[in-house]
């Protein structure tokens, strides 16, 4: 950077990327904790993020105890932001974040450069597209992701559909099934490739059943027809490997296909900053402070992992803000972390590692619907959490507070402190498999150079998603989160929540 540019660098303690539910909550909490040299940057003309187009209700039940629309929910935060006078930019796009936490912002008034002490990533997520799904057939007009259709209808007053098929039972798709119906479109059906719905139970009821819209599980769209505007889709049943079953094809005439087949954390900026991503969440690998692999860069909300409820996004961002405040004050060196592994029945966890000395909120999702289960979080033989549930579904994000399990933090002066590395050495001696290597333990970093790794043909250990399977070499010391079915003779006790 030349001298002229250096003069224009402004110092900011914390820069927040994104003014949606995560960014707003983080900004408010930082301010309330006395961190004043902060800046929130939002690419849209207005704050609120994706909440702006979510005009349905159901927001705020967990947080405010009342049902709000998306804009109303955002309003609770933006009103306070106004009241406090928290600095923010709108119509300003973060262009680049460097590993040194220098942030470049593009605005109509020029390029702005900030040297920051901490960056909070709160960019949210994007939707899986037709191309990413690689649906066979033609490429006509009339294929929209659910969020795009939602934005057209609710922000732009444009009606994109008349005769509609919805692929995927994600929550936005369900919400749009109702919204389109209310505006006079005819929604033929929702097709879900999995044998279970991916949206929340309340949306299945309120958006589909209440309107008589059928949901077909284990079905997918196998061909798109129409060279100009969509003319129809072919729908097929799928087998247990999610492959279309020949002979089950049926043609549905429609002018619009709405895709609600998954959300992907939006991490382009994070990658440029050198942040390592978890192939399962597709968000950053974080510790219990929600700090990424780049010290001083934090992440919360849907950019970290896709949430089920905006309320939990806000809460996560507040916990993150607390950690940023401590980080700014203490500026402690990175301590060693114990990895957290998603075990049997668990798709992913957040965080993916912890120092073990402070309480944190463990979030995760299950891989399939199950009944009468026990969730266990353990470190070797030490059980950190044991919970029973009558029913768990992938649509729901499970969250549990985990208490500190290593001896108290060093500065508290207590004796008998065992560092993670000491613990690991001891565990390695005691464990028959032994401590293998550091690289295996830091498994997420293996994905940094994915191309190099996957150029070895023998190592084509991919899931259908294209992501790598976990290496079977386990580090000696790790926290495992797993779920198991409770046997009838074990009873199903009072613990059930």
């Amino acid at each position, binding site marked *: 950077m030349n001298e002229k540019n250096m003069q224009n660098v402004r110092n900011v303690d914390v820069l927040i990327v994104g003014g949606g539910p995560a960014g707003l909550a983080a900004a408010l909490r930082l301010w309330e904790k006395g961190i*004043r040299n902060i800046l929130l940057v939002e690419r849209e*003309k207005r704050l609120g993020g994706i909440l702006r187009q979510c005009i349905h209700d159901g927001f705020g039940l967990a947080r405010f105890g009342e049902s709000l629309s998306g804009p109303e929910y955002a309003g609770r935060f933006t009103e306070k932001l106004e009241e406090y006078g928290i600095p923010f930019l709108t119509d300003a796009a973060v262009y680049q974040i460097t590993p040194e936490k220098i942030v470049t912002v593009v605005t109509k008034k020029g390029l702005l450069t900030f040297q920051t002490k901490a960056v909070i990533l709160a960019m949210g997520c994007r939707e899986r597209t037709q*191309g990413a799904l690689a649906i066979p057939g033609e490429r006509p007009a009339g294929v929209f992701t659910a969020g795009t259709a939602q934005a057209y209808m609710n922000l732009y*007053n444009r*009606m994109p559909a008349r005769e509609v098929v919805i692929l995927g039972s994600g929550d936005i798709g369900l919400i749009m099934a109702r919204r389109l119906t209310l505006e006079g479109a005819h929604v033929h059906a929702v097709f879900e490739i999995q044998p279970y719905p991916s949206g929340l139970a309340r949306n299945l009821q309120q958006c589909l059943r209440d309107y008589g819209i059928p949901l077909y599980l284990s079905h997918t769209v196998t061909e798109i027809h129409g060279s*100009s*505007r969509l003319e129809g889709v072919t729908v097929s049943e799928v087998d247990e490997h999610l492959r279309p079953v020949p002979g089950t094809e049926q043609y549905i005439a429609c002018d619009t296909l709405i895709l609600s087949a998954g959300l992907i954390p939006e991490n382009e900026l994070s990658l440029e900053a050198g942040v390592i991503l978890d192939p399962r969440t597709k968000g950053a690998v974080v510790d219990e402070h929600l700090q990424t692999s780049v010290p001083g860069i934090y992440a919360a909300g849907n950019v970290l992992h896709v949430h089920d409820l905006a309320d939990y996004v806000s809460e996560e961002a507040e916990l993150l803000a607390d950690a940023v405040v401590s980080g700014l004050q203490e500026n402690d060196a990175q301590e060693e972390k114990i990895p957290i592994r998603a075990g049997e029945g668990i798709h992913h966890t957040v965080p993916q590692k912890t120092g073990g000395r402070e309480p944190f909120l463990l979030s995760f999702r299950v891989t399939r619907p199950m009944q009468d289960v026990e969730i266990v979080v353990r470190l070797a033989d030490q059980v950190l959490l044991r919970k029973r549930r009558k029913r768990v579904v992938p649509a729901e994000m499970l969250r549990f507070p985990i208490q500190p399990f290593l001896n108290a933090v060093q500065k508290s002066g207590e004796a008998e402190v065992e560092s993670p590395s000491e613990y690991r050495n001891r565990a390695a001696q005691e464990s028959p498999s032994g401590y293998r290597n550091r690289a295996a333990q830091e498994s997420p970093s293996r994905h940094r150079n994915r191309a190099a790794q996957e150029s070895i043909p023998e190592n084509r250990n991919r899931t259908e998603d294209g992501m790598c399977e976990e290496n079977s070499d386990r580090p000696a010391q790790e926290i495992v989160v797993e779920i198991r079915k409770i046997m009838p003779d074990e009873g199903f006790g009072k613990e059930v929540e």
Partner: protein
Amino acid sequence: MGVQEASQNKEQLSLERFDVLVIGGGVVGSAIARELCRYRLRLGVLEKNPDVCMETSGRNTGVCHGGFAYDTGSLKAKLCVEGNRMMDSLSKELDFPFRRCGKVLVGNTREDYERLLEVIAQGEKNGASNMRMIDEEELHRLIPGVIGKFAMLSGNSGILDPFQMTIALAENAVQNGARYFLEREVTGIRQTEEGYLVETSRETFRTRWVINSAGLNCAKISEMLGIRGHRVIGSKDDYILLDNRLGKDLPMPIYTVPSNTYMGIHVTITTDGNVLLGPTAQDTENLSWYGVEQKNLDFLYKAAMDLWPNFTRADYIRTYSGILPKWIDGNGKIQDFCIEIRDDIAPRAVNLVGIESPGLTASVAIARHVIRMMQERERFPGNESFDPVRHGIVRFAEQEPQVQAGLIEENPDYGQLVCRCQKVTRAELLQAVHNPLGVRTLTGLKVRTRAMMGRCQGGYCQMRLTQMLEEELKIPEKEILYSRPGSPLFFGKVREIADTGNNGTEKAEAGNAQNGNTESERGKGMDIGRMPGDKRNSMEPVPGEEAHS
């Protein structure tokens, strides 16, 4: 200029007389139009689609071929080598992306090796140069992760952006006085004493010369000219486009050893850094169906994995299909390019049939060949005011930070990022909306700016793009087209809101938000918020900002 020429009356005769009408706004038609601008002629181009480059020209790998793969002495070989040689200067003159990055043909067996030696020998006879065999070590040094024991390296091969190239040729033609008539499908051609009457889906045009550069419809137009008997079949290719994060690991296209009929699957890089898997090369009689088939997607995945296994299904951005028109003889054998003037049947009509690969590489060479043939029959006066230079849209993302700052200072629209993932600004999009050809489709904006081409495929920006088309060109929402004729995006408004003007979005949002959105009360003028330590909306840093309460 452009589609504004629209006429309601089908029978209406275009009052103007043209010296030359080119049928087809693909890369070859546009190259012919552009090269004809070197002469003082009234030129028109008729294109049935709402944009140029919408069929074969835009649906391929974008590889600039070396010229070694074609029979010695053929037009394909000659014009490909000629086209390849001029590509550096052409891309500079017309401002479209081209990189002479080389390409490899990868082999594994003894037969492969011998076949590649034959290819080199043929290439040398064709006048192609800069080809040699490389061993496994050099191959793997050049392209990490490639699977193969040796390769032929063609240093003269390269990659180009077929959309930008065609648009550049067309815009340069327009800039030099040629006129593009979009959404004019030719429905009939009648010979007159002075030349031809060309009937289209809108009006009828008069011209002295006519050029059949109709690509997939070349046989149809040929028949209309009275030149019968050309048999054309399609060769359909499915492709998978991968994320442009992968491009940095692939320095040049990878091909397999060609057989006599099929070039084999390629793993290609685009000038934007995307990786392309394809093609599948299946014969087809249906020249208008661009559907991608599941079995082809599966095949491409497997075949590419055996060549360059550095991707996963999570890298898929899009799939697409293209069709090459192949001129075949009675036995189904694929023929050379057919470029002819049948003075006996259709004087002053140039008939181009079966212009398939390497038509993109050869396009300007083909154009010059066509004009040589025309000039053997009529001398055209030179056009001293011909300007061969065309400037494309200045791309914000490709500039150094200081240049970027300058761009914003000059034009604040450069400071408004509309497409996040491809980093496309409002200024670029506005230039695309007001493009010289008068194209007004959503995909027209896409190919001109890269907006919507990234991994969200317009999930974030497409609403802004359609809004710009509506507002800038005053097009009602029902007439906004996605891509092809008859591809509207909207059925109307959700609700009629009184007094929306050009500001429907804001009103709709305020209405939908009920009383919840405090932002809507802040007013439109508030496009920049507050800086830290600043109460006055000023962008100037305030001294001692740390001390701010």
